[in-house]
């Protein structure tokens, strides 16, 4: 008798938690969905902010976010793919080098985003940028400032673990027999990687890139002081420009704009756009991963 009740209690506790969590998810989506959808217009997406941010659109923020993740991917996808190749194809299981790099990747994924911001500031902006200025511009401040280049490089390192894990997963799915067949025909290891392993891992590379982009579009802490700005009259026109960003926009607008209530609709709409963006990307990645797993089972 007691047991049955206990069993029921456990089921209720666990089920209750699960449903409560799902409830929270639904509530979040509904609140943003309802609050944001009403203010979403075509003009909103294609115009610049006007009237002290109380009217107009968020076009520059969309562009800024897009440019940021684009630059980030240009740096991050190759580095991540190459690292995954090295870890999976060249390094042995017992190797110290392999363990060291894996430990580094693991640690990287646990470092708070704000520390990456400090990294961007201390290394990229002060050291590299400042160094370039000292050498090439006679100390005049050109590169040693927050800009979209340093911000995207910072983000590239932030999302590196995601990239590496995704590509490695895809490579592990390539059967060893294919590599053996290629080598037995007189191909070198590099040729085998280039012609057999990489093409088979393409979906993993794509998945990793998409997940990295999703993270890059939503993460705000690292760009707080490495390049994001709240209002810029022009779109970024070079690597030394600052940029507007959807997430940053939401943050500043909801905490610091002079008329928080008047801009509330815009805050919701911007949040809606950001959420829609990250969800679409994540959904794509999940689809890709599912497709990849299905192929591997064959």
């Amino acid at each position, binding site marked *: 008798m007691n047991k049955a009740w206990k069993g029921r209690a456990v089921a209720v506790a666990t089920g209750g938690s699960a449903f409560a969590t799902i409830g929270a998810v639904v509530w979040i989506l509904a609140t943003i969905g309802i609050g944001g959808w009403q203010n979403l217009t075509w003009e909103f997406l294609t115009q610049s902010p006007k009237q002290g941010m109380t009217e107009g659109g968020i076009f520059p923020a969309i562009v800024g976010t897009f440019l940021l993740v684009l630059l980030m991917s240009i740096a991050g996808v190759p580095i991540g793919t190459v690292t995954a190749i090295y870890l999976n194809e060249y390094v*042995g*299981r*017992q190797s110290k080098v392999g363990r060291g790099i894996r430990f580094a990747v693991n640690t990287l994924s646990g470092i708070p985003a704000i520390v990456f911001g400090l990294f961007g500031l201390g290394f990229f902006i002060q050291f590299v940028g400042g160094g370039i200025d000292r050498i090439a511009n006679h100390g005049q401040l050109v590169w040693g400032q927050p800009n979209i280049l340093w911000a995207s490089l910072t983000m590239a390192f932030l999302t590196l673990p995601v990239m590496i894990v995704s590509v490695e997963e895809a490579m592990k799915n390539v*059967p060893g*027999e*294919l590599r*053996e*067949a*290629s*080598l*037995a*025909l*007189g*191909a*070198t290891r590099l*040729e085998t990687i280039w*012609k*057999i392993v990489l093409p*088979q891992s393409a979906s993993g590379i794509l998945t990793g890139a998409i997940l990295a982009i999703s993270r890059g579009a939503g993460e705000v802490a690292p760009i707080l002081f490495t390049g994001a700005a709240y209002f810029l009259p022009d779109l970024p026109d070079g690597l030394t420009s600052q940029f507007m960003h959807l997430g940053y926009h939401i943050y500043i607008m909801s905490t610091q704009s002079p008329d928080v209530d008047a801009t509330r609709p815009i805050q919701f709409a911007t949040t809606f756009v950001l959420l829609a963006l990250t969800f679409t990307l994540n959904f794509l990645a999940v689809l890709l991963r599912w497709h990849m797993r299905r192929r591997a089972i064959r």
Partner: protein
Amino acid sequence: MTEDIKIRAKDLNLHYGQKQALRDIDLDIERNRVTALIGPSGCGKSTFLRCLNRMNDLIESASIKGRVEVDGMDIYGSDIDPVLLRRKVGMIFQKSNPFPKSIYENIAYGPRIHGIKDKRALDEIVERSLRGAALWDEVKDELTKSGMALSGGQQQRLCIARAIAVDPEVLLMDEPASALDPIATAKIEELIWQLKETYTIVIVTHSMHQASRVSDTTAFFYMGEMVEMGPTQKIFTSPSQKRTEDYITGRFG
């Protein structure tokens, strides 16, 4: 007489870490003959086969001592390129492993790697190889079909075609028909009989019947040692070693 010996193994020893897998192997493989390696599972016959094209190099814990000579040259010498060796000594695996590409691309893969780019030359090689593997008539109209869409037996013949496309001199076959049905197996065995006119063939098989059907010479491996080697008929009718006789009569294995 030495021109008849294509491959010679001398004092070959192999360790996986601490475990010794091959012990003092001395073995000659004759050119243009089929040599079968038989023995119970785990006796080292596949390991030995993989020494002949240095595929064991890929295994971290493997360490090799001794000589393996192909055409008189020690393939473990420091001036030998394993990549070029594998072009000369090809391998067909137990489980067929076509690339997830078209039939044409599977076969053209090897020649392309080795520098042949001209489309017509590749076309010719593809046809020649498929004919040599007795597969041409079955697939000649579907060369763009995926190699993985073929039946098991056809896939294995595709792998054979792929191997001969790079123009090797030796074919190493590791239990090539063990995953196939009797009809497909028969086709493969007949193919081997034809191929030996052009290539030197070494085949590992766990089926004694297959060895007696297909090979000219047979070597019996047991626990990492090469126990006895001789003309196939002699080995199967009057072996000189007791262990050989026990295996052949089914007392173990």
